């Protein structure tokens, strides 16, 4: 499975990427929503995008809306991974087309649980 981790923090990209790699994912990274769209347009269409909310250039919500506006990316599962934890923000992200929402700080187990809910946990990990 393939994942794209989108966060302006290199540290957070590394943390999320390391966990996903441990679950057997092939991982690519992008520093903001615009760079992430560039990755998709290059032809790297992942199974999962982990998306921070607050980023320069193009934020996570704008990225979700841009992806959902393009039918070519309808198979991509979008998960917000962010410190934005108010109900209003969560509702806004889900209404825009995000499938799941993980609040920072999180543990590897919390990420694993979300992937299991989404059916995106490789069998050898969930076993």
């Amino acid at each position, binding site marked *: 499975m393939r994942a794209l981790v989108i966060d*302006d*923090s*290199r*540290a*957070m990209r*590394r*943390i999320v990427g*390391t966990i996903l790699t441990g679950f057997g994912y092939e991982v690519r990274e992008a520093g903001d929503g615009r760079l992430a769209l560039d990755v998709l347009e290059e032809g790297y269409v992942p199974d999962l995008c982990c998306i921070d909310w*607050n*980023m*320069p250039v193009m934020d996570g919500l704008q990225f979700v809306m841009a992806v959902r506006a393009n039918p070519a990316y309808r198979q991509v599962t979008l998960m917000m991974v*962010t*410190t*934005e*934890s*108010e109900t*209003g923000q969560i509702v806004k992200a889900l209404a825009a087309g995000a499938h799941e929402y993980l609040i*920072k*700080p*999180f*543990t590897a187990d919390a990420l694993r649980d979300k992937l299991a809910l989404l059916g995106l946990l490789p069998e050898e990990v969930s076993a």
Partner: protein
Amino acid sequence: MTLQEAQPITTLLDTRTVQSIADEVWPSLVGDGEAFVPVPVPPPGDVVSAWVDIIGPWTGSVVVTCAPATAEALTESVLMTRPPTVVDAEDVADALGELANVLGGNIKSVLPGESRLGLPQMGVAPPHGRLDDVRSLVGQWRGNFLTITVQGAAPAPHAERDEVPL
């Protein structure tokens, strides 16, 4: 409502809440078994700060301050680097900024009303407003001085000039 009329952070947020947020953030971001310990140690001569702004019914910043060497060690812990890999200034700004960002996001979530979080910044901490609008936790990480400060914004310099004298 002006900054002067807004409820100060000391009435909105207690020390225990800030500490409980730090208790969640440290193991998740800094590493397993890591903790911010609220036992003060003497401050170093030189410090660096990273912060995020919160803009809403309460406006201010969440600031993390420590010695440059502590910031470097925190970065190595966050990035899980091992010698001979060395972290550079960009790594330090990124890791300390993300620490402030995650703390700030969780502190924002317990404040009343809808607020916006700014992007992390690093340097000399911004000036704060009135003294009763500052909630500071002075403590340590691995025995090194570190503070988490939630501070109200200083009023804009032109605000008083606009006032009509009575």
